[in-house]
């Protein structure tokens, strides 16, 4: 009886019968060998002429191809400081008639006072939507959109930003608006109301997607006791007034607190004139910006479980790590690449995705900031393999701590990072952006020039030392979002389980 299915299957699909196919297969090989002999004879007969034959090259293994060297001198933007303290980075690029400005402002939600969480984000939004001294919000929108120009403003965790992108022919008009938005936003009360309502709505919707829940709970935990770990609440948003926004703006938006990068189709001198005309009379600010607090606490192992009946579990684990302004940053980059951010050949991807088919998204991340960094790993898998995947991730982290990496892995990671480096110069505005953020983060201005060298110098021992120094699987925060009923392993195997509070406040 057991054999029955075989028979029916074969009969059903007789055209593709396996026996027939494998037999064909063997035949194919036989004939291929025969032609191989013929080929060999021909090669022997016409050896000299064959060497130059192009077609022979086609079957060379791709790793044996050779390439002419790239001749390229990376350009560098000009830096200058206006008398009132605005730092300018300028880089001409006449390829297309477009001009872009990106400004970075020293502020951030990190400076929000307790209970006012969300004020930075709302300030950043309403600067653009709430009108200026000269333009009411609607006029401003109409003017910009008719030109096809775009201005954006925003305030993130550790910086504020403002950007302008406009055709060369409209630049003189657009820069007036851009300057007004930075200098004289009026925060129209109705637009403040809209921004508050939108933010409230996003809080109401904050449990709609698993990844959002996971990253929120992760941040809340690793930044415990730090302003970075505070989450906005509806209650807090309601309390924010227009006055608070005006004050937040006044406290951080002054010329000696701004770095501006300008790229595109302009003449440098003319551009400096225009910028001076629009920003030159902006008075220097005197109030110093306090240094940002540094999160430092690495917790004991904590397991945070957020219950929501998704058909898949989202796993996020990690902890604080080494900062960007540290020589350890480079080996840490290499380590992260090999462990889980370097694509299919990284260890986590290989083990969890391609070998076992347990996840579609899996990997590690490392973000180096000023004076601190964050390292973590993530995966999404079906409930029945949740425990197994957590185990595998921890195993891989432990393995790299104990065994380090091998030469092949190091070569691969180094080559990848070094060869990809040329893309840092692929767009002028991107390059100018790198320079303004280097200055903002207090990194040396030859950072890009020395980057290649710093990566090349990383050794196997460095990586092992870094892994032992910074990776703390036994002390990491583990967040799991999903439905524990289907889990293969109770979560308390991994530590004391704390349930996340998914109520909306």
């Amino acid at each position, binding site marked *: 009886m057991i054999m029955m*299915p075989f028979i029916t*299957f074969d009969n059903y699909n007789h055209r593709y019968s*396996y026996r027939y*196919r*494998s037999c064909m*297969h063997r035949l194919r090989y036989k004939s291929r060998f025969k032609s191989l002999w013929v080929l060999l004879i021909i090669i022997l007969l016409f050896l000299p002429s064959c060497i130059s034959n*192009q077609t022979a090259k*086609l079957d060379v293994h*791709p790793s044996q*191809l050779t*390439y*002419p060297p*790239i001749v*390229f001198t990376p350009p560098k933007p000009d830096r200058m400081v206006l008398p009132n303290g605005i730092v300018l980075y300028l880089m001409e690029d006449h*390829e*297309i008639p*477009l001009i872009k400005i990106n400004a970075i402002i020293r502020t951030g939600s990190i400076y929000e006072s307790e209970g006012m969480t969300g004020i930075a984000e709302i300030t950043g939004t309403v600067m653009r*939507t709430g009108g200026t001294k000269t333009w009411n919000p609607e006029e401003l929108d109409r003017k910009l*959109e*008719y*030109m*096809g*120009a775009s201005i954006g403003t925003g305030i993130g965790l550790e910086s504020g930003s403002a950007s302008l992108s406009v*055709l060369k022919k409209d630049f003189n008009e657009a820069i007036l608006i851009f300057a007004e938005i930075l200098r004289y936003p009026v925060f129209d009360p109705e*637009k403040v109301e*809209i921004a508050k*309502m939108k933010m409230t*709505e*996003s809080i109401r*919707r904050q449990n*709609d*997607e*698993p990844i959002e829940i996971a990253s929120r709970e992760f941040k809340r935990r690793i930044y415990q006791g730090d302003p970075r770990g505070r989450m906005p609440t509806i209650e807090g948003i309601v309390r924010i007034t227009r006055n608070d926004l005006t004050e937040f703006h006044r406290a951080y938006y002054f010329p000696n607190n701004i770095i501006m990068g300008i790229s595109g189709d302009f003449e440098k001198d003319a551009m400096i004139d225009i910028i001076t005309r629009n920003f030159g009379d902006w008075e220097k600010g005197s109030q110093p910006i306090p240094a940002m607090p540094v999160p430092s606490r690495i917790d004991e192992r904590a397991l945070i479980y957020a219950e929501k009946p*998704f*058909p*898949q579990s989202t796993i996020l684990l990690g902890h604080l790590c080494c900062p960007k302004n540290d020589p350890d940053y480079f080996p840490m980059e290499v380590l992260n690449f090999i462990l889980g951010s370097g*694509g*299919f*050949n990284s260890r986590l991807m*290989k083990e969890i*995705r*391609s*070998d*076992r*088919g*347990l*996840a*579609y*998204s899996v990997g590690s991340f490392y973000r180096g900031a000023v004076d601190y960094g964050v390292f973590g790993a993530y995966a*999404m898998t*079906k409930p029945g393999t949740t425990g197994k995947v957590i185990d595998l991730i921890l195993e891989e982290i432990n393995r790299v701590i104990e065994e380090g990496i091998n030469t092949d892995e190091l070569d*691969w990671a180094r080559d*990848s990072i070094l*060869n*990809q*480096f*040329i*893309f840092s110069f*692929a767009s002028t*505005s991107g390059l100018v952006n790198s320079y303004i953020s280097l200055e903002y983060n207090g990194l040396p201005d030859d950072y890009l020039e020395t980057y290649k060298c710093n990566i090349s110098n990383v050794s196997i021992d460095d990586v092992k030392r870094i892994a032992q120094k910074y990776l703390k699987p036994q002390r990491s925060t583990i967040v799991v979002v999903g439905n524990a009923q289907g889990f293969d392993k109770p979560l308390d195997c991994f530590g004391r389980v704390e349930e996340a509070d998914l109520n909306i406040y």
Partner: protein
Amino acid sequence: MKKDNFMINKRSWPDIHWLPQRMKIYFHGKHTHPFTAPRGDENRIYFRDKRPWPFGPPQIMKIEGYFRDKRSCHLVSPRSMKINNEVYFRDKKKVGRAFTLVSQTLFILLQLIFLLLSYKNACAIDLESKVIRRHLSNGMTVLIMERHETPVCSLYIRFKAGAVDEPSGESGTAHFLEHLLFKGTKSIGTTDYMKESIILEKIEKAGKYLDWERQKGDKMDPNRVEHLSKELAALQSEHKKYVIKDEMDLIYSQNGEKGFNASTGMDLTTYTVSLPSNRIELWARIESDRMMNPVFREFYSERDVVLEERRQSYDSNPFRKLLEQFLATAFLVHPYRNPIIGWESEIEMLDPDKVMEFFRRHYAPSNVIVAAVGDIDPDRFMQLMERYFGRIPPQPPVPPVITKEPLQRGERRIEVLFDAEPQLLIGFLKPTVPDRADYIFDIISSILTDGRTSRLYKRMVIDEKLAVSVNTMNGVPGGRYPNIFMISATPLYPNTTEDIERVIYEELERLKDEPVSDWELGKIKNQIQVEIISGLASNPGMADKLSYFEAISGDWRYLSTYLDIISTITTGEIQDAARKYFRKSQRTVATLVKPEDGEI
């Protein structure tokens, strides 16, 4: 050699592949001048006699050049002629190389001269002068745009094959195939392909039996499943001996790739990578190999990966779930109703034969568009293309999808239960490019939701504070076949989806009743212009656009003529289109609703 001779008469001509620039047909009588087939259709010879009735079909006098035979893929050339237009063709497998090279060089030279001439009256942002379009002899289309600012380039390969082309019961094949094509070829990803292929066959067999057993549901024999699973696992671990894992990715990343990836859509499948420009040959070597000799390694574990992908991006995401159910409602029969990733039960049963069949059929050279943008020397690039991709044999053209969506008889409305806050989708069926209506819907989309001054955004988000967001999309879920104009909106609490739905319909009525203002049209034209100009600054962005429009509309110049066509559209046409398509009976509405306890 007699076996290789065969006869082709007039009637079967459309079955022969026409090789561009290589064929001339001479006729008797007045038609003695060489006949050249019309441009724009490289796959078939269209033979139309323009003389009025009662003249019969023209009599062939002489044919020069050669064709490619559909079945054997060999070159065939006319050997002799006969009366009644019957021509004998002889197998010309070993066609002289010299002729090919000479004719090709001539062609390239001619194109260059043409380009130089046309460059004269081209302005700084004239796209037509920047883009070079060529064809390989096997029918592949190549688009090149030079940008020498940085020594990098973006290389896109698009196949005019996607989820819409899948046979019924095999949804997810196109996407799964895209995954499998990362697993290597006969020479990449293996230590010994000959030995490996034997195990691969065994794995295929075991996997297939296992699938069939599992498919039985209640009647499944658990012992047999266990036995087969063990067998499969053992074979898979034996297979590992011959596998160099993800070697393609390894080589590309070692050479500094950026954005080495692929994507599958309803209409198209795209393989992308950006590389330092000295490494273009690497791309040609790998990608041509991938088109000729793919090996489906790790088939069954990759199928599990796709199931995880489905859980992640369709089943755990409220918007995607809503969209999936919406499309399955809006299209009753057209394959646009199936999700790109496939239905779970069908993904679970995909087998290597089915996927290979799809590959063979749809990944034909005539179905391919290559776009290369960046630091590229067009002539050298074309040489590489000929050398690597030129050896791929031509294939018969792929027929379009037969199924047509029947006339919709009445509004369709569904609720989708999901533990999340409410969302709304409204869709109207409409024609696709090159129909003028498609351009009109682009304008309507812009009028309704592009920017803060757009009608729906201004009214719903700014003035009346009913919604947090409102968007429109023209051409959901694809562009090759008639599709949907879709409006999506998210209400602001305590407003409901009914509240915002009503306002949307009011604005659609306004489009029917009042002509659109000149200011709005002027704004849209300016924005299109800026979009085209700023798009030029990105290699991947440009490669994406060029290849996309070449694939969907048949000519990338859709992009360069776009603004001109938009400029000819009148306010009356917009009103007419609104009246014709925004009808209650023609719409589908889907809302996301929180389930009550125990409802789902």
